[in-house]
């Protein structure tokens, strides 16, 4: 790769000299056409019959680092972290990355040598034997108790009652008759005192009956305040009371 000669607008010479000038800051990465470097390298590869993977890998690392340097310089305000990366720092970064890669390459070489040195070590490989499963131990059982349990299960279950699902509405007429009878004996009464002890449904039907009587003009309804007792009076009495109050 060192032999790669470049003929660029800003530089003419070997690739490693270009790198050195960049590291010395004697050449601006912005002025370098990196695509032209890649083209030159690809042309050199095409000329050779064999591909040198080592050289290709090193070239890729260097060119990508150069590309990153150039991108950082071209877009200095793109990210805050780039502000601190001066050309010298960028060169340091390039050297650091190369150093890191070199160490890993050396480590790979060490591993390869180690592997070669261990070729006469043979050992058994395979799945580990299964660990024993914990044994399930049942407490002593009584067969009669089992029979009782089975017998209990054999009994058909009781029929499920659905009675609670049906709402029973007593007829409104029942309460109409009841209230009319009551009004024939008494001139007025409280609704609450008459429906106390009845279910919520029965109380609702009783109230409907009350509305029916009011609609037909048979009764007058009064309530002093919300939630106060509802008072029911015969209409005749109510008219008399009203008339008396007005005449007074």
């Amino acid at each position, binding site marked *: 790769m060192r032999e790669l000669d470049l003929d660029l607008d800003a530089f003419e010479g070997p690739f490693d000299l270009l790198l050195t000038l960049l590291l010395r800051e004697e050449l601006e990465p912005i002025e370098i056409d990196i695509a032209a470097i890649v083209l030159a390298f690809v042309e050199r590869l095409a000329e050779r019959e064999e591909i040198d993977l080592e050289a290709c890998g090193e070239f890729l690392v260097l060119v990508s680092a150069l590309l990153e340097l150039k991108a950082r310089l071209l877009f200095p305000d793109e990210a805050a972290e780039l502000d601190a990366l001066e050309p010298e720092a960028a060169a340091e970064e390039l050297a*650091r990355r190369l150093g890191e*890669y070199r160490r890993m390459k050396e*480590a*790979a070489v060490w*591993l390869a040598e180690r592997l070669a040195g*261990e070729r*006469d070590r043979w*050992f*058994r490989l395979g799945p580990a034997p299964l660990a024993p499963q914990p044994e399930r131990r049942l407490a002593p059982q009584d067969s009669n108790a089992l029979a009782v349990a089975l017998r209990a299960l054999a009994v058909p279950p009781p029929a499920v009652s659905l009675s609670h699902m049906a709402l029973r509405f007593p007829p409104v007429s029942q309460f109409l008759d009841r209230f009319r009878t009551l009004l024939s004996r008494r001139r007025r009464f409280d609704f609450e005192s008459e429906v106390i002890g009845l279910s919520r449904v029965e109380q609702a039907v009783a109230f409907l009956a009350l509305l029916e009587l009011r609609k037909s003009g048979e009764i007058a309804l009064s309530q002093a305040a919300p939630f106060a007792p509802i008072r029911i009076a015969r209409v005749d009495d109510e008219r008399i009371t009203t008339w008396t109050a007005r005449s007074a």
Partner: protein
Amino acid sequence: MDSTLRLIATNPLDQLARTIEALLIVASAPLSVAELAEAAEDDPERVETALGLLRERFGERRSGIVLEQVAGGYAFRASREASEACARLFERPIERGLSHAALETLAVVAYLGPCSRPEVARIRGVAADSAVASLVERGLISEAGRESGPGGAVRYRTTPLFERVFGLESLAALPRLDDLGADGEQIRERLLEVASARAS
């Protein structure tokens, strides 16, 4: 007191050594002292003493099988004298065809792991997908969680099999990274030297 006396009488050190020997024969991976002590229902210190006995008994040129301390535990292997015979009968599928790229990736994971494929690619300068897949398939590295944050990349670390294949007692047996390769300053100096030589 009775039970202690009975233990000494029925389980002397030699018998413990024989039990450990049996456990290591059955095991297909190195067993730690703690694992051996638990299986043998004995004291870890006595297990280590018994392992010392076994190491004398199963040493190179003394026996066809050799006791070695590897991958954080103890395991038997064939003696080196028998390696040629072993090679005629058995294969080494794990290290067969291990490429240079795979070895570089393995080095990155061994030294910097747990680390992700993008980290490996950043250091090596090329995509590491194929090398990582090959190493996972061989059982030399395995997944070790993900990087933090949503969609974090899978991280990898070396397995005990890696240590065993490479004959390492643990990852601490790897050479120090600082002792390997040139540092950044050396690389920079080398580049400058090359430039000076060309300029002159």
